[in-house]
């Protein structure tokens, strides 16, 4: 069985409810997106029970990520593919999906594992776009996978939203979006692994391999642009202060209506 995890390093300092998943080294791009850590953790769990499973991890990033890639290789990934090229900088999610799709062309896979949410909390955009480019299914917000039923041809998973839990059977190839709530974690490298040379398992790809024209990638290919950015600054707000009397109730009620909450 061949699994590919697509993984996004996030700048350290992004808050999450879990402890950092990867032993942090002194690199700027030190952490994994917590959903992605669950995705890799799941793939490695499958491999632990079925050692013939091939787990490749694919990372597209401009930041230094070699140390992170080595750590992922040390906990059991067969290969970590690092895609990097300055041309790709400033790409939007669709362009990134195109880059990843091209990198996957030469590789066989049964299932692609990704995250469900952006670190900002919204729904992830890249995995469904990749699914569309590859013309395969995409199922995100997965909170559990039936490990015994997981095979090269499909899986049974449970997804959740605020209101419902849904159980699905999915045929492969497909992209499964895991949630950190699935509880899968990246293992820590064993002591004897920690200094092992894993460089032969790190594969670097750049535009010589993927051959995009400059206008096909980067900011030049983006179909939208940010005109202005308003940084939120809570400290500057002067709150309205009311008493807990009938007038206060009236004010808060009005405020909730105005904000569309009521």
């Amino acid at each position, binding site marked *: 069985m061949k699994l590919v995890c697509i993984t996004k390093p996030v700048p350290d300092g992004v*808050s*999450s*409810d879990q402890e950092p998943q990867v032993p942090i080294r002194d690199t700027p791009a030190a952490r994994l997106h917590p959903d992605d850590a669950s995705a890799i953790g799941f793939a490695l769990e499958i491999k632990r029970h079925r050692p013939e499973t091939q787990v490749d991890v694919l990372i597209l990033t401009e930041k230094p990520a070699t140390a992170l890639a080595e750590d992922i290789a040390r906990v059991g990934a067969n290969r970590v593919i690092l895609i990097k090229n300055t041309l790709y900088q400033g790409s939007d*999610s*669709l362009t990134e*999906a195109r880059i990843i799709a091209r990198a996957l062309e030469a590789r066989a896979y049964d299932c692609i594992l990704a995250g469900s949410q952006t*670190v900002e*909390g*919204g*729904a992830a*955009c890249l*995995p*469904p*776009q990749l*699914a*569309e*480019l590859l013309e395969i*299914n*995409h199922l*995100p*917000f997965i909170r559990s996978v039936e490990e015994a039923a997981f095979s090269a041809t499909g899986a*049974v998973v449970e997804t*959740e*939203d*605020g209101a*419902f*839990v*849904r*159980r*699905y059977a*999915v*045929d492969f190839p*497909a992209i499964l979006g895991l949630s950190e709530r699935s509880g899968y974690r990246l293992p820590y490298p064993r002591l004897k692994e920690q200094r092992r040379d894993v460089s032969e398992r790190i594969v670097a790809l750049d535009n010589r391999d993927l051959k995009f024209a400059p206008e096909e990638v980067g900011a030049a290919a983006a*179909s*939208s*642009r*940010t*005109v*202005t*950015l*308003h940084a*939120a600054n*809570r*400290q500057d*707000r002067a*709150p*309205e*202060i*009311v*008493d*807990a009397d*009938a007038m*206060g*109730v*009236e004010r808060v*009620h009005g*405020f909730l209506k105005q*904000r*569309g*909450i009521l």
Partner: protein
Amino acid sequence: MRRVLVIAEQAEARVTPDLLEAARCFAGDAPCESFALVASGDAAALSGWLDTVVSVPAPGTGVEAIPALVRSVAALHREFGFACILMPGSQWGSMLAPRLAARIEAALIPEVREITRSEQSVRFLRRVSRNGDLAVIETVEGAPAVVTLQPRVFSSSGKPDRTTRFLDREGQGAGNSGIRLLRKTENTEQDIRDADVLVSAGAGVGRRIDELKPLADALGGQVSASRSLVNQGIAPRRIQVGQSGKTVAPRLYMAMGIHGASQHVAALAGAETIICVNTNAKAPLCSLADMVVVGDAVAFAQDLLRKIKEEQENATD
């Protein structure tokens, strides 16, 4: 003429007023032809609200039907050339929109909360970080926009005053989509990280935390707590907000008798609006609030709930 398309959540089978309002904002004062795609549901109910309503047969209403729906919308886009396609920011919409944008090579603009049209351009306002930073986005010349809406920020002001034409198009559905829903059950383990509204209890509420539940229900939200109540064994740890609890990002956070220790505040950066109810207007959390109510938290919660109920009853009379 410019054209805008709205796509309703298939499982709900109706075009919600916020989609219509967003379409109106997109049109501005310029001439614009509005379309709705109805894949399951009642096309006739939209009479008067839009210029054109297109019905297509769909192989289902859930995620299993999304790839087929994407093909149907793409075919419609080839026929009419939409400048903007709007859908709800639900889980379903957030799965449909990126696939559609990839298919028709459109700009994807998620979780939009405001659309403004000027003579030269149209601009989309969206939240881009957990801290509430906002960005104004424009599409590049000629690129259509595929937009999801932040829930409940557009409220309708229009009237059903149009002459609607109804069209039928063939579905682009495949038989077996490769995803089968086996079971659907209510999610009983609600997670405070999913909540739109949190009514959060601190030491100032104490054992009366259960008395906040009716207000949380009325606001469509959940009850959460500070660590003080978790430590005292009054609240379960899964509803604790804070550095050693959960990071939350609700649209409204009502801090009821919560002081605002740094370990609590650390998990609130994503809260859009904060209302503090505290006997002490100088509690640190109050300085981060949009509104501070000075007084007893539980009593205020009950008064506010009574007001909400009264208004609802008046509205249905």
